[in-house]
């Protein structure tokens, strides 16, 4: 089989429907039987699994009875995937046949033999390009990320993690968002799938770090354009997501950089990660409890703010 598309879903039925419909169109040019779509549903309460069964019987569905998180769900899907290429796809995306063909063609040409994966240009529904490529979070960049110095001084080494290259030409990159990432099965087999110790966040960064360590490049291909709505699942659990993100950051630091860091610096970094996490969780908790009308500065909570193009426009 040429291609397996793997989607891990949690409570995003409407978006999932749009995504799967777009995939139906995108897979039309492929030979019958050369592609499969796998959906791993993490016990969604919005009828996502039933939707897949009812409207997309061709999809291979793994319906978990409990939310086994993104990393475990991805590995469940990878375990049954048969394609030589694996497309990791978020349910809040829309993929066209053109975009999919361009991504596949890129990995098929001999010159790309060193590429373990390729990511498209992600755009908002408005067409605006998303900053979907980041640098690797080195200890210095992680420090900048955790303390906020990275945002204050984006051109310094502290800002390395959020610094995005000009996204106007094909290029090898550190780590693109895994919202839509086409990978070689061979490369994935070499590194062994997702780290289940990173359930929701940073697992894509970890994956890219391990691919690079194994000698694989990851490319960005702007002429392949995919609509990405963004953050649909994680917006549902803001405070918990923040804390999970900081725990993941700790694991990432420990896994990839601890050996290269002096002990005291590592200890300070870990303390900073959790201190910053605690502050952000506290702020999220406060925001959720401050009466609606008195929120002068923050406006509506992030979870309720519509994305560009989705606000009331009638």
């Amino acid at each position, binding site marked *: 089989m040429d291609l397996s598309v793997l989607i891990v879903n949690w409570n995003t039925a*409407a*978006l999932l*429907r*749009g995504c799967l*419909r*777009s995939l139906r*169109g*995108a897979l039309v040019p492929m030979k019958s039987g050369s592609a499969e779509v796998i959906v791993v549903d993490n016990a969604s309460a919005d009828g996502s699994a039933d939707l897949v069964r009812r409207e997309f019987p061709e999809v291979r569905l793994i319906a978990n009875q409990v939310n086994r998180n993104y990393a475990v769900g991805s590995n469940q899907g990878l375990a049954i995937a048969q394609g030589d290429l694996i497309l990791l796809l978020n349910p809040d995306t*829309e993929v*066209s*046949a*053109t*975009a999919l063909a361009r991504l596949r063609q890129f990995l098929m040409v001999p010159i790309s033999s060193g590429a373990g994966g390729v990511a498209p240009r992600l*755009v908002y*529904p*408005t*067409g*605006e390009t998303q900053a979907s490529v980041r640098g690797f979070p080195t200890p210095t960049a992680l420090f900048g990320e955790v303390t906020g110095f990275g945002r204050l001084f984006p051109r310094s080494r502290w800002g390395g993690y959020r610094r995005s290259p000009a996204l106007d030409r094909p290029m090898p990159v550190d780590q693109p968002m895994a919202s839509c990432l086409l990978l070689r099965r061979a490369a994935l087999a070499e590194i062994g799938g997702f780290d289940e110790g990173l359930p929701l966040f940073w697992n894509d960064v970890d994956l890219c770090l391990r691919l690079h360590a194994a000698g694989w490049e990851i490319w960005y291909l702007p002429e392949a*354009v*995919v*609509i990405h*709505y963004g953050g649909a699942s994680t917006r549902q659990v803001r405070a918990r997501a923040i804390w999970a993100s900081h725990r993941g950051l700790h694991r990432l630091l420990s896994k990839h950089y601890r050996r290269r860091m002096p002990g005291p610096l590592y200890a300070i970094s870990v303390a900073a990660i959790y201190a910053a996490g605690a502050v952000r969780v506290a702020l999220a908790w406060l925001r959720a409890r401050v009466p*609606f*009308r008195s*929120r002068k500065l923050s*406006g*509506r909570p992030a979870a309720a703010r*519509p*994305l*560009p*193009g*989705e*606000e*009331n*426009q*009638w």
Partner: protein
Amino acid sequence: MSIRSTTQTHSDHPFAGTRAVLFDLDGTLVESAIDFRRMRVEIARLAADHGLSPEEFAAPDVLGMVRAAAARLPDPRVFLARAEETMVAIEMAALPGAREIPGARDLLRSLASAGLAVGIVTRNCRAAASPLIAAFALQHGVVLTRDDVPRVKPHPEHLLIAARRLGVPAHATMMVGDHPMDVQGGRAAGMRTVGFLGPDRPESVFAAAPPDAVIRHLSEIAAWISPF
């Protein structure tokens, strides 16, 4: 009778001399439950079904997406019919969740009592707009939906036709709406404009097209009406 300031300086109030007020519907008079995310997804899917890639129909609003996609198709009639059908279905599905924006009914009643002409201009379809207007008893002289005009706001024609039907010149008409497109349309039509923010949205919503005034509650407009 026209709008005057409630202060002593009647003549220098920015809205002095207003004889007609046009209102946007969804988000201004009615809290709409239209699922615009779903609408975008469905329209994007429909455009993809017609062989278009996302960059070919990208637009900041749904009707813009539909227009952009239609312009790319040699014969857009089927696409347009399906797009309209999709939008209407989502608009109709939102009717049960709609609520009156606080003060809307009272404001329209007091404007009418004060002798001002009132119009409602909306990008919604007539099938959805009519029951909303009836359900919340929104008093008006004219309603123009997207089914009634060749070009919808922010094109000024939408608002100019409404003003003409009310028999009031554009310079004596005020446009009130919650979206920058309402303000853009009003400005392009030569009208005075009021941006409705509601209790929680920041003024930066209208940064691209600043209105003549912003309000957080509809009753602020009632306060501009001269008491005599």
